Protein backbone atom coordinates (compact mmCIF):
# COMPACT_ATOMS: atom_id res chain seq x y z
CA UNK A 1 0.00 0.00 0.00
CA UNK A 2 2.66 2.43 1.06
CA UNK A 3 4.87 1.51 -1.86
CA UNK A 4 2.04 2.18 -4.25
CA UNK A 5 1.53 5.64 -2.83
CA UNK A 6 5.19 6.47 -3.14
CA UNK A 7 5.22 5.26 -6.72
CA UNK A 8 2.20 7.41 -7.51
CA UNK A 9 3.85 10.46 -5.96
CA UNK A 10 7.04 9.88 -7.90
CA UNK A 11 5.12 9.58 -11.14
CA UNK A 12 3.25 12.80 -10.41
CA UNK A 13 6.48 14.62 -9.57
CA UNK A 14 8.01 13.36 -12.76
CA UNK A 15 5.04 14.58 -14.78
CA UNK A 16 5.26 18.01 -13.19
CA UNK A 17 8.94 18.22 -14.04
CA UNK A 18 8.23 17.43 -17.64
CA UNK A 19 5.41 19.98 -17.70
CA UNK A 20 7.57 22.80 -16.34
CA UNK A 21 10.35 21.87 -18.72
CA UNK A 22 7.90 22.19 -21.60
CA UNK A 23 6.80 25.62 -20.37
CA UNK A 24 10.34 26.89 -20.42
CA UNK A 25 10.77 26.25 -24.09
CA UNK A 26 8.85 29.47 -24.82
CA UNK A 27 10.76 32.46 -23.51
CA UNK A 28 8.48 34.11 -20.94
CA UNK A 29 8.66 37.83 -20.48
CA UNK A 30 6.40 40.34 -18.78
CA UNK A 31 6.13 44.06 -18.16
CA UNK A 32 3.98 46.03 -15.75
CA UNK A 33 1.85 49.07 -16.56
CA UNK A 34 0.40 50.97 -13.61
CA UNK A 35 -1.77 54.06 -13.21
CA UNK A 36 -4.88 55.84 -14.47
CA UNK A 37 -8.03 53.89 -13.77
CA UNK A 38 -9.67 55.56 -16.78
CA UNK A 39 -7.09 53.94 -19.07
CA UNK A 40 -7.07 50.59 -17.32
CA UNK A 41 -9.77 48.88 -19.42
CA UNK A 42 -8.09 49.96 -22.66
CA UNK A 43 -4.58 48.87 -21.68
CA UNK A 44 -5.89 45.62 -20.24
CA UNK A 45 -7.79 44.77 -23.42
CA UNK A 46 -4.82 45.67 -25.60
CA UNK A 47 -2.49 43.68 -23.32
CA UNK A 48 -4.64 40.57 -23.59
CA UNK A 49 -4.84 40.89 -27.34
CA UNK A 50 -1.06 41.35 -27.48
CA UNK A 51 -0.41 38.29 -25.31
CA UNK A 52 -2.66 36.22 -27.52
CA UNK A 53 -0.68 37.24 -30.59
CA UNK A 54 2.76 36.97 -28.95
CA UNK A 55 3.12 33.76 -26.97
CA UNK A 56 4.86 34.06 -23.64
CA UNK A 57 4.72 37.87 -23.48
CA UNK A 58 2.57 39.20 -20.67
CA UNK A 59 1.40 42.71 -19.87
CA UNK A 60 0.39 43.19 -16.23
CA UNK A 61 -1.99 46.12 -15.91
CA UNK A 62 -2.85 47.74 -12.58
CA UNK A 63 -4.94 50.76 -11.66
CA UNK A 64 -4.25 53.05 -8.75
CA UNK A 65 -4.74 56.45 -10.35
CA UNK A 66 -2.67 58.80 -12.48
CA UNK A 67 -0.67 59.95 -9.43
CA UNK A 68 0.33 56.38 -8.69
CA UNK A 69 1.28 55.78 -12.31
CA UNK A 70 3.48 58.87 -12.46
CA UNK A 71 5.21 58.30 -9.13
CA UNK A 72 5.84 54.62 -9.87
CA UNK A 73 7.36 55.31 -13.28
CA UNK A 74 9.31 58.22 -11.81
CA UNK A 75 10.77 55.84 -9.24
CA UNK A 76 11.48 53.30 -11.97
CA UNK A 77 9.42 50.67 -10.17
CA UNK A 78 7.32 49.78 -13.22
CA UNK A 79 7.82 49.64 -16.98
CA UNK A 80 4.97 51.92 -18.04
CA UNK A 81 3.13 54.63 -16.09
CA UNK A 82 -0.39 55.42 -17.33
CA UNK A 83 -1.64 58.96 -16.81
CA UNK A 84 -4.49 61.21 -17.93
CA UNK A 85 -2.40 64.31 -17.33
CA UNK A 86 0.97 65.56 -18.50
CA UNK A 87 3.79 64.63 -16.12
CA UNK A 88 4.76 68.32 -16.11
CA UNK A 89 1.40 69.18 -14.54
CA UNK A 90 2.00 66.93 -11.57
CA UNK A 91 4.19 68.14 -8.73
CA UNK A 92 7.06 66.06 -7.38
CA UNK A 93 7.80 64.37 -10.72
CA UNK A 94 11.03 64.75 -12.66
CA UNK A 95 9.31 65.08 -16.04
CA UNK A 96 12.59 65.49 -17.96
CA UNK A 97 13.62 61.87 -17.71
CA UNK A 98 10.17 60.53 -18.61
CA UNK A 99 9.27 59.86 -22.23
CA UNK A 100 5.68 60.59 -23.23
CA UNK A 101 3.75 58.19 -25.49
CA UNK A 102 0.29 59.51 -26.35
CA UNK A 103 -1.88 56.61 -27.31
CA UNK A 104 -5.41 58.04 -27.38
CA UNK A 105 -7.56 61.08 -26.70
CA UNK A 106 -10.55 61.28 -24.40
CA UNK A 107 -13.20 63.99 -24.56
CA UNK A 108 -14.86 65.28 -21.41
CA UNK A 109 -18.33 66.79 -21.27
CA UNK A 110 -20.41 68.49 -18.58
CA UNK A 111 -23.46 66.42 -17.66
CA UNK A 112 -26.63 67.44 -15.83
CA UNK A 113 -29.71 65.73 -14.50
CA UNK A 114 -32.39 65.66 -17.22
CA UNK A 115 -35.10 68.25 -16.69
CA UNK A 116 -33.13 71.36 -15.77
CA UNK A 117 -34.41 73.13 -18.86
CA UNK A 118 -30.89 74.02 -19.94
CA UNK A 119 -29.13 72.21 -22.79
CA UNK A 120 -26.58 74.74 -23.95
CA UNK A 121 -24.29 77.02 -21.98
CA UNK A 122 -21.41 79.31 -22.79
CA UNK A 123 -17.95 78.58 -21.44
CA UNK A 124 -18.28 81.63 -19.16
CA UNK A 125 -21.59 80.39 -17.76
CA UNK A 126 -20.05 76.98 -17.10
CA UNK A 127 -17.15 78.65 -15.28
CA UNK A 128 -19.58 80.72 -13.20
CA UNK A 129 -21.48 77.58 -12.20
CA UNK A 130 -18.37 75.82 -10.96
CA UNK A 131 -17.02 78.93 -9.20
CA UNK A 132 -20.36 79.50 -7.46
CA UNK A 133 -21.46 82.70 -9.19
CA UNK A 134 -24.49 81.06 -10.78
CA UNK A 135 -26.43 78.98 -8.27
CA UNK A 136 -29.84 78.44 -9.89
CA UNK A 137 -30.83 77.02 -13.27
CA UNK A 138 -33.33 79.86 -13.62
CA UNK A 139 -30.42 82.27 -14.12
CA UNK A 140 -29.62 80.36 -17.33
CA UNK A 141 -33.23 80.34 -18.52
CA UNK A 142 -34.06 76.97 -17.03
CA UNK A 143 -36.29 75.85 -14.20
CA UNK A 144 -36.21 77.42 -10.75
CA UNK A 145 -33.98 74.73 -9.30
CA UNK A 146 -30.83 75.19 -7.23
CA UNK A 147 -27.62 73.96 -8.89
CA UNK A 148 -25.67 71.27 -7.07
CA UNK A 149 -22.04 71.05 -8.16
CA UNK A 150 -20.40 67.63 -8.05
CA UNK A 151 -16.65 67.31 -8.61
CA UNK A 152 -14.33 64.38 -9.05
CA UNK A 153 -11.70 63.93 -6.32
CA UNK A 154 -8.96 66.54 -6.47
CA UNK A 155 -6.03 65.14 -8.41
CA UNK A 156 -8.24 63.09 -10.72
CA UNK A 157 -7.19 63.42 -14.34
CA UNK A 158 -10.73 64.17 -15.53
CA UNK A 159 -11.06 66.98 -13.00
CA UNK A 160 -7.63 68.40 -13.83
CA UNK A 161 -8.54 68.53 -17.53
CA UNK A 162 -11.96 70.04 -16.92
CA UNK A 163 -10.61 72.71 -14.59
CA UNK A 164 -7.74 73.57 -16.92
CA UNK A 165 -10.05 74.27 -19.88
CA UNK A 166 -13.16 75.57 -18.15
CA UNK A 167 -11.98 77.30 -14.99
CA UNK A 168 -8.55 78.47 -16.13
CA UNK A 169 -6.90 80.17 -13.18
CA UNK A 170 -10.06 80.30 -11.08
CA UNK A 171 -10.81 77.78 -8.36
CA UNK A 172 -13.88 75.60 -8.06
CA UNK A 173 -16.08 76.08 -5.00
CA UNK A 174 -15.75 73.45 -2.31
CA UNK A 175 -18.35 70.89 -3.33
CA UNK A 176 -19.33 67.28 -3.12
CA UNK A 177 -16.70 64.97 -4.54
CA UNK A 178 -16.82 61.44 -5.85
CA UNK A 179 -14.05 59.03 -6.58
CA UNK A 180 -15.21 57.44 -9.82
CA UNK A 181 -16.97 58.47 -13.02
CA UNK A 182 -19.51 55.69 -12.57
CA UNK A 183 -20.64 57.05 -9.21
CA UNK A 184 -20.72 60.57 -10.62
CA UNK A 185 -23.10 59.50 -13.39
CA UNK A 186 -25.23 57.60 -10.89
CA UNK A 187 -25.59 60.62 -8.62
CA UNK A 188 -26.17 63.09 -11.45
CA UNK A 189 -28.87 60.81 -12.84
CA UNK A 190 -30.74 60.68 -9.54
CA UNK A 191 -30.23 64.06 -7.91
CA UNK A 192 -32.27 66.86 -9.51
CA UNK A 193 -30.30 69.94 -10.52
CA UNK A 194 -26.85 68.36 -10.30
CA UNK A 195 -24.01 69.21 -12.68
CA UNK A 196 -20.74 67.33 -13.08
CA UNK A 197 -18.47 66.12 -15.87
CA UNK A 198 -17.41 62.74 -17.27
CA UNK A 199 -15.58 61.26 -20.22
CA UNK A 200 -17.74 60.82 -23.35
CA UNK A 201 -17.87 57.07 -22.85
CA UNK A 202 -19.77 57.51 -19.58
CA UNK A 203 -22.64 59.52 -21.10
CA UNK A 204 -25.87 57.51 -21.20
CA UNK A 205 -29.56 58.33 -21.52
CA UNK A 206 -29.81 58.72 -17.74
CA UNK A 207 -27.93 62.02 -17.90
CA UNK A 208 -27.90 64.97 -20.27
CA UNK A 209 -24.67 66.21 -21.87
CA UNK A 210 -24.55 69.99 -22.27
CA UNK A 211 -23.32 71.60 -25.45
CA UNK A 212 -21.00 74.57 -25.04
CA UNK A 213 -21.49 77.59 -27.33
CA UNK A 214 -23.70 75.33 -29.48
CA UNK A 215 -20.81 72.91 -30.06
CA UNK A 216 -21.91 69.35 -29.39
CA UNK A 217 -19.63 67.03 -27.41
CA UNK A 218 -18.75 64.60 -30.19
CA UNK A 219 -15.57 62.86 -31.28
CA UNK A 220 -15.53 64.85 -34.55
CA UNK A 221 -15.54 68.14 -32.66
CA UNK A 222 -12.69 66.95 -30.47
CA UNK A 223 -10.63 65.91 -33.47
CA UNK A 224 -10.59 69.43 -34.91
CA UNK A 225 -10.45 71.06 -31.44
CA UNK A 226 -13.88 72.76 -31.70
CA UNK A 227 -14.58 71.02 -28.41
CA UNK A 228 -11.63 72.00 -26.23
CA UNK A 229 -12.23 69.90 -23.11
CA UNK A 230 -10.21 66.81 -23.91
CA UNK A 231 -6.99 65.22 -22.79
CA UNK A 232 -4.38 62.82 -24.04
CA UNK A 233 -4.03 59.36 -22.55
CA UNK A 234 -0.33 59.12 -21.80
CA UNK A 235 1.85 56.06 -21.33
CA UNK A 236 5.10 57.23 -19.79
CA UNK A 237 8.37 55.32 -19.80
CA UNK A 238 11.44 56.08 -17.74
CA UNK A 239 13.90 56.85 -20.54
CA UNK A 240 13.51 55.55 -24.09
CA UNK A 241 11.57 52.25 -24.10
CA UNK A 242 13.38 49.02 -24.97
CA UNK A 243 12.53 45.42 -25.71
CA UNK A 244 9.03 44.29 -24.79
CA UNK A 245 8.02 47.76 -23.54
CA UNK A 246 8.89 49.33 -26.88
CA UNK A 247 7.20 46.50 -28.74
CA UNK A 248 4.01 46.89 -26.74
CA UNK A 249 3.93 50.68 -27.14
CA UNK A 250 4.37 50.28 -30.90
CA UNK A 251 1.51 47.80 -30.78
CA UNK A 252 -0.70 50.33 -28.98
CA UNK A 253 -0.01 52.83 -31.76
CA UNK A 254 -0.48 50.33 -34.58
CA UNK A 255 -3.42 50.88 -36.95
CA UNK A 256 -4.89 47.62 -35.75
CA UNK A 257 -5.33 48.76 -32.14
CA UNK A 258 -5.98 52.41 -32.97
CA UNK A 259 -8.80 51.81 -35.44
CA UNK A 260 -10.52 48.87 -33.73
CA UNK A 261 -9.92 48.47 -30.02
CA UNK A 262 -9.54 52.14 -29.13
CA UNK A 263 -12.70 53.11 -31.00
CA UNK A 264 -14.62 50.17 -29.61
CA UNK A 265 -13.86 51.39 -26.10
CA UNK A 266 -15.00 54.95 -26.94
CA UNK A 267 -11.62 56.61 -27.01
CA UNK A 268 -10.45 58.71 -29.93
CA UNK A 269 -7.49 57.26 -31.89
CA UNK A 270 -4.46 59.50 -31.78
CA UNK A 271 -4.09 59.17 -35.55
CA UNK A 272 -7.52 60.77 -36.09
CA UNK A 273 -6.52 64.01 -34.40
CA UNK A 274 -6.23 66.93 -36.80
CA UNK A 275 -4.35 69.05 -34.27
CA UNK A 276 -1.73 68.53 -31.62
CA UNK A 277 -1.71 70.21 -28.24
CA UNK A 278 1.26 70.69 -25.90
CA UNK A 279 1.29 70.94 -22.12
CA UNK A 280 0.68 74.72 -22.21
CA UNK A 281 -2.37 74.21 -24.41
CA UNK A 282 -0.82 75.59 -27.64
CA UNK A 283 -2.20 73.82 -30.66
CA UNK A 284 -0.52 73.05 -33.95
CA UNK A 285 -2.18 71.37 -36.94
CA UNK A 286 -1.04 67.84 -37.70
CA UNK A 287 0.50 67.75 -41.18
Amino acid at each position, binding site marked *: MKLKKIKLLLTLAGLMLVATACGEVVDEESITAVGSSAMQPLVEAAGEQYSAENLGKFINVQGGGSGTGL*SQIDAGAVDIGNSDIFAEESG*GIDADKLVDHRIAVVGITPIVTPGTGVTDVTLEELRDIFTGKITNWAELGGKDLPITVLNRA*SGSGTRATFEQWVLGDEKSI*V*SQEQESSGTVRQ*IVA*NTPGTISYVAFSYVTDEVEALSINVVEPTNENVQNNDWIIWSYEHMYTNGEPEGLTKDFLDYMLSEDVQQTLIQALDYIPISNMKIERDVEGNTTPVQ
Partner: protein
Amino acid sequence: MKEIHGDFSKKSKKRKLESFGRTISFVCIALIVLVVLSILYFVISKGVSTFFVDHVSLKDFLFGTLWRPGEVGEDGNPLVGALPMIVGSFGVTIFSAIFATPFAIAAAIYMVEISPKTGKKILQPVVELLVGIPSVVYGFIGLMVVVPTIRSIFGGTGFGILSATLVLFVMILPTVTSMAVDALQAVPRHYREASLAMGATRWQTIYKVVLRAATPGLLTAVVFGMARAFGEALAVQMVIGNAAMMPTSLITPASTLTSILTMSMGNTVMGTLENNVLWSLATILLIMALLFNILTRWIGKKGAMNK
Protein backbone atom coordinates in the same frame (compact mmCIF):
# COMPACT_ATOMS: atom_id res chain seq x y z
CA MET B 1 15.45 0.09 36.25
CA LYS B 2 17.89 0.89 33.52
CA GLU B 3 15.10 1.60 31.05
CA ILE B 4 13.43 4.06 33.39
CA HIS B 5 16.74 5.85 33.96
CA GLY B 6 17.18 6.19 30.24
CA ASP B 7 13.75 7.75 29.88
CA PHE B 8 14.42 10.54 32.36
CA SER B 9 17.79 11.58 30.97
CA LYS B 10 16.18 12.55 27.63
CA LYS B 11 13.20 14.70 26.91
CA SER B 12 10.09 12.62 26.49
CA LYS B 13 8.19 12.70 23.22
CA LYS B 14 5.44 14.73 24.83
CA ARG B 15 7.88 17.27 26.25
CA LYS B 16 9.42 17.68 22.83
CA LEU B 17 6.01 18.16 21.27
CA GLU B 18 5.18 20.73 23.91
CA SER B 19 8.30 22.81 23.40
CA PHE B 20 7.80 22.55 19.64
CA GLY B 21 4.26 23.89 19.97
CA ARG B 22 5.42 26.62 22.28
CA THR B 23 8.07 27.75 19.80
CA ILE B 24 5.53 27.85 16.97
CA SER B 25 3.06 29.95 18.94
CA PHE B 26 5.85 32.26 20.06
CA VAL B 27 6.99 32.80 16.48
CA CYS B 28 3.41 33.54 15.40
CA ILE B 29 2.91 36.09 18.20
CA ALA B 30 6.28 37.69 17.45
CA LEU B 31 5.29 38.00 13.81
CA ILE B 32 1.99 39.68 14.67
CA VAL B 33 3.72 42.11 17.03
CA LEU B 34 6.30 42.84 14.35
CA VAL B 35 3.60 43.56 11.75
CA VAL B 36 1.70 45.86 14.13
CA LEU B 37 4.86 47.73 15.11
CA SER B 38 6.01 48.18 11.52
CA ILE B 39 2.56 49.47 10.46
CA LEU B 40 2.60 51.92 13.36
CA TYR B 41 6.11 53.05 12.46
CA PHE B 42 5.35 53.36 8.75
CA VAL B 43 2.11 55.33 9.08
CA ILE B 44 3.38 57.64 11.81
CA SER B 45 6.75 58.31 10.18
CA LYS B 46 4.93 59.26 6.97
CA GLY B 47 2.28 61.21 8.86
CA VAL B 48 4.70 63.46 10.74
CA SER B 49 6.57 64.42 7.57
CA THR B 50 3.73 66.88 6.89
CA PHE B 51 4.96 68.79 9.91
CA PHE B 52 8.72 68.22 9.74
CA VAL B 53 9.36 68.13 6.00
CA ASP B 54 6.62 70.40 4.68
CA HIS B 55 6.55 72.56 7.83
CA VAL B 56 2.79 72.72 8.23
CA SER B 57 1.97 73.75 11.78
CA LEU B 58 0.04 71.19 13.81
CA LYS B 59 -2.47 73.89 14.75
CA ASP B 60 -3.22 74.71 11.09
CA PHE B 61 -3.69 71.02 10.36
CA LEU B 62 -5.96 70.18 13.28
CA PHE B 63 -8.01 73.38 13.42
CA GLY B 64 -7.84 74.75 9.86
CA THR B 65 -11.16 74.59 8.03
CA LEU B 66 -9.94 74.90 4.43
CA TRP B 67 -8.94 71.62 2.79
CA ARG B 68 -7.37 72.30 -0.58
CA PRO B 69 -4.14 70.29 -0.70
CA GLY B 70 -1.84 71.58 -3.37
CA GLU B 71 -2.94 75.18 -2.96
CA VAL B 72 -1.50 77.80 -0.64
CA GLY B 73 -3.45 80.39 1.30
CA GLU B 74 -2.84 84.13 1.42
CA ASP B 75 -0.23 83.73 4.15
CA GLY B 76 1.71 81.29 1.98
CA ASN B 77 0.88 78.24 4.09
CA PRO B 78 -0.65 75.20 2.38
CA LEU B 79 -4.42 74.88 2.84
CA VAL B 80 -4.57 71.56 4.64
CA GLY B 81 -7.02 72.16 7.49
CA ALA B 82 -8.42 68.79 8.53
CA LEU B 83 -11.05 70.06 10.97
CA PRO B 84 -14.01 69.47 8.58
CA MET B 85 -13.07 65.81 8.29
CA ILE B 86 -12.39 65.43 11.99
CA VAL B 87 -15.77 66.96 12.83
CA GLY B 88 -17.44 64.76 10.20
CA SER B 89 -15.84 61.59 11.55
CA PHE B 90 -16.78 62.34 15.16
CA GLY B 91 -20.25 63.48 14.06
CA VAL B 92 -21.21 60.26 12.28
CA THR B 93 -19.58 58.16 15.02
CA ILE B 94 -21.37 59.79 17.93
CA PHE B 95 -24.75 60.06 16.19
CA SER B 96 -24.73 56.47 15.00
CA ALA B 97 -23.77 55.29 18.50
CA ILE B 98 -26.63 57.33 19.98
CA PHE B 99 -29.06 55.77 17.49
CA ALA B 100 -27.76 52.23 17.82
CA THR B 101 -27.31 51.93 21.58
CA PRO B 102 -31.01 51.82 22.65
CA PHE B 103 -31.87 49.34 19.88
CA ALA B 104 -28.89 47.15 20.67
CA ILE B 105 -29.50 47.09 24.41
CA ALA B 106 -33.22 46.42 23.93
CA ALA B 107 -32.44 43.55 21.58
CA ALA B 108 -29.87 42.18 24.00
CA ILE B 109 -32.31 42.33 26.94
CA TYR B 110 -34.87 40.49 24.84
CA MET B 111 -32.36 37.83 23.82
CA VAL B 112 -30.99 37.25 27.31
CA GLU B 113 -33.72 38.09 29.80
CA ILE B 114 -37.11 37.98 28.16
CA SER B 115 -37.09 35.25 25.57
CA PRO B 116 -33.77 33.42 25.30
CA LYS B 117 -35.33 30.74 23.09
CA THR B 118 -36.63 33.03 20.34
CA GLY B 119 -33.51 35.10 20.81
CA LYS B 120 -31.21 32.18 20.05
CA LYS B 121 -33.35 30.82 17.27
CA ILE B 122 -34.25 33.97 15.35
CA LEU B 123 -32.48 37.09 16.57
CA GLN B 124 -29.00 35.59 16.84
CA PRO B 125 -28.85 34.37 13.22
CA VAL B 126 -30.29 37.69 12.01
CA VAL B 127 -27.67 39.67 13.90
CA GLU B 128 -24.91 37.40 12.63
CA LEU B 129 -26.17 37.85 9.09
CA LEU B 130 -25.98 41.63 9.48
CA VAL B 131 -22.31 41.30 10.46
CA GLY B 132 -21.60 39.29 7.34
CA ILE B 133 -22.98 41.80 4.82
CA PRO B 134 -20.07 43.56 3.07
CA SER B 135 -19.87 47.30 3.60
CA VAL B 136 -20.12 48.06 -0.11
CA VAL B 137 -23.62 46.54 -0.04
CA TYR B 138 -24.59 48.79 2.87
CA GLY B 139 -23.18 51.74 0.94
CA PHE B 140 -25.07 50.81 -2.21
CA ILE B 141 -28.37 50.49 -0.32
CA GLY B 142 -27.56 53.81 1.33
CA LEU B 143 -27.00 55.45 -2.05
CA MET B 144 -30.10 54.01 -3.69
CA VAL B 145 -32.57 54.05 -0.78
CA VAL B 146 -31.46 56.21 2.15
CA VAL B 147 -30.15 59.20 0.18
CA PRO B 148 -33.31 59.62 -2.01
CA THR B 149 -35.52 59.20 1.08
CA ILE B 150 -33.64 61.88 3.02
CA ARG B 151 -33.80 64.09 -0.07
CA SER B 152 -37.56 63.78 -0.41
CA ILE B 153 -38.15 64.39 3.32
CA PHE B 154 -35.67 67.16 4.11
CA GLY B 155 -34.83 68.54 0.64
CA GLY B 156 -31.28 69.32 -0.42
CA THR B 157 -29.22 66.63 -2.10
CA GLY B 158 -29.77 63.92 0.49
CA PHE B 159 -26.05 63.43 0.98
CA GLY B 160 -24.70 64.25 4.41
CA ILE B 161 -24.10 63.25 8.00
CA LEU B 162 -27.70 62.09 8.51
CA SER B 163 -27.55 59.56 5.66
CA ALA B 164 -24.14 58.35 6.84
CA THR B 165 -25.47 58.04 10.39
CA LEU B 166 -28.41 55.91 9.26
CA VAL B 167 -26.17 53.58 7.26
CA LEU B 168 -23.63 53.28 10.08
CA PHE B 169 -26.44 52.69 12.57
CA VAL B 170 -27.36 49.47 10.77
CA MET B 171 -23.70 48.53 10.36
CA ILE B 172 -22.70 48.86 14.02
CA LEU B 173 -25.97 47.51 15.41
CA PRO B 174 -24.92 43.83 15.23
CA THR B 175 -21.52 44.54 16.81
CA VAL B 176 -23.04 46.40 19.73
CA THR B 177 -25.88 43.90 20.11
CA SER B 178 -23.76 40.78 20.25
CA MET B 179 -21.33 42.37 22.70
CA ALA B 180 -24.21 43.60 24.86
CA VAL B 181 -25.60 40.06 24.88
CA ASP B 182 -22.25 38.80 26.18
CA ALA B 183 -22.26 41.51 28.86
CA LEU B 184 -25.75 40.60 30.06
CA GLN B 185 -24.98 36.89 30.07
CA ALA B 186 -21.94 37.55 32.23
CA VAL B 187 -24.14 38.88 35.05
CA PRO B 188 -24.20 36.06 37.65
CA ARG B 189 -27.49 34.19 37.97
CA HIS B 190 -27.66 34.69 41.72
CA TYR B 191 -27.99 38.47 41.26
CA ARG B 192 -31.27 37.93 39.46
CA GLU B 193 -32.41 35.26 41.92
CA ALA B 194 -31.68 37.47 44.92
CA SER B 195 -33.52 40.37 43.35
CA LEU B 196 -36.58 38.28 42.49
CA ALA B 197 -36.53 36.67 45.95
CA MET B 198 -36.74 40.09 47.51
CA GLY B 199 -39.97 40.73 45.65
CA ALA B 200 -38.72 42.80 42.72
CA THR B 201 -40.64 42.48 39.47
CA ARG B 202 -38.92 41.26 36.34
CA TRP B 203 -38.63 44.80 34.99
CA GLN B 204 -37.19 46.06 38.29
CA THR B 205 -34.67 43.23 38.23
CA ILE B 206 -33.60 44.03 34.68
CA TYR B 207 -33.45 47.77 35.19
CA LYS B 208 -32.00 48.01 38.69
CA VAL B 209 -29.83 44.89 38.90
CA VAL B 210 -28.91 43.33 35.57
CA LEU B 211 -28.29 46.54 33.60
CA ARG B 212 -26.41 48.13 36.51
CA ALA B 213 -24.19 45.11 36.93
CA ALA B 214 -23.54 44.92 33.19
CA THR B 215 -22.81 48.65 32.71
CA PRO B 216 -19.05 48.30 32.08
CA GLY B 217 -19.69 45.55 29.54
CA LEU B 218 -22.39 47.58 27.81
CA LEU B 219 -20.12 50.63 27.65
CA THR B 220 -17.41 48.49 26.10
CA ALA B 221 -19.93 47.31 23.52
CA VAL B 222 -20.82 50.90 22.60
CA VAL B 223 -17.17 51.95 22.36
CA PHE B 224 -16.47 48.98 20.07
CA GLY B 225 -19.36 50.05 17.88
CA MET B 226 -17.99 53.59 17.79
CA ALA B 227 -14.56 52.30 16.79
CA ARG B 228 -16.15 50.46 13.88
CA ALA B 229 -18.14 53.52 12.83
CA PHE B 230 -15.05 55.71 13.03
CA GLY B 231 -13.04 53.41 10.81
CA GLU B 232 -15.72 52.60 8.20
CA ALA B 233 -14.71 54.05 4.85
CA LEU B 234 -16.51 52.67 1.82
CA ALA B 235 -20.15 52.82 2.87
CA VAL B 236 -19.72 56.29 4.38
CA GLN B 237 -17.92 57.58 1.32
CA MET B 238 -20.86 56.59 -0.86
CA VAL B 239 -23.51 58.51 1.10
CA ILE B 240 -21.84 61.46 2.82
CA GLY B 241 -21.14 63.53 -0.30
CA ASN B 242 -17.43 64.01 0.36
CA ALA B 243 -17.43 67.79 0.51
CA ALA B 244 -14.46 68.86 2.60
CA MET B 245 -16.24 71.76 4.30
CA MET B 246 -17.51 72.34 7.82
CA PRO B 247 -20.93 70.68 8.10
CA THR B 248 -23.56 73.34 8.77
CA SER B 249 -26.39 70.86 9.27
CA LEU B 250 -26.98 67.14 9.25
CA ILE B 251 -28.25 67.16 5.68
CA THR B 252 -25.53 69.17 3.94
CA PRO B 253 -22.69 67.25 2.29
CA ALA B 254 -19.77 66.61 4.61
CA SER B 255 -16.76 64.32 4.70
CA THR B 256 -14.91 62.05 7.09
CA LEU B 257 -11.23 61.22 7.52
CA THR B 258 -11.74 57.86 5.87
CA SER B 259 -13.81 59.13 2.95
CA ILE B 260 -11.19 61.73 1.98
CA LEU B 261 -8.46 59.10 2.34
CA THR B 262 -10.07 56.55 0.05
CA MET B 263 -10.96 59.24 -2.49
CA SER B 264 -7.56 60.87 -2.78
CA MET B 265 -4.97 58.16 -2.30
CA GLY B 266 -4.68 57.08 -5.91
CA ASN B 267 -4.37 60.61 -7.19
CA THR B 268 -1.37 61.84 -5.26
CA VAL B 269 2.33 61.34 -5.84
CA MET B 270 4.35 59.68 -3.08
CA GLY B 271 6.53 62.14 -1.18
CA THR B 272 4.55 65.30 -2.05
CA LEU B 273 2.63 67.37 0.49
CA GLU B 274 -0.67 66.15 -0.98
CA ASN B 275 0.38 62.60 -0.20
CA ASN B 276 1.91 63.34 3.19
CA VAL B 277 -1.23 65.00 4.57
CA LEU B 278 -3.16 61.85 3.70
CA TRP B 279 -0.72 59.93 5.87
CA SER B 280 -1.34 62.49 8.60
CA LEU B 281 -5.07 61.77 8.33
CA ALA B 282 -4.24 58.06 8.60
CA THR B 283 -2.19 58.80 11.70
CA ILE B 284 -5.20 60.50 13.31
CA LEU B 285 -7.28 57.40 12.53
CA LEU B 286 -4.61 55.16 14.02
CA ILE B 287 -4.36 57.24 17.18
CA MET B 288 -8.14 57.22 17.54
CA ALA B 289 -8.23 53.42 17.15
CA LEU B 290 -5.60 53.23 19.88
CA LEU B 291 -7.64 55.54 22.12
CA PHE B 292 -10.80 53.49 21.61
CA ASN B 293 -8.79 50.41 22.56
CA ILE B 294 -7.39 52.01 25.70
CA LEU B 295 -10.87 53.27 26.60
CA THR B 296 -12.41 49.78 26.47
CA ARG B 297 -9.59 48.42 28.63
CA TRP B 298 -10.00 51.24 31.10
CA ILE B 299 -13.77 50.66 31.31
CA GLY B 300 -13.15 46.96 31.83
CA LYS B 301 -10.75 47.64 34.69
CA LYS B 302 -13.07 50.17 36.34
CA GLY B 303 -15.94 47.71 36.14
CA ALA B 304 -13.88 44.91 37.60
CA MET B 305 -12.95 47.00 40.64
CA ASN B 306 -16.55 47.82 41.47
CA LYS B 307 -17.51 44.18 41.80
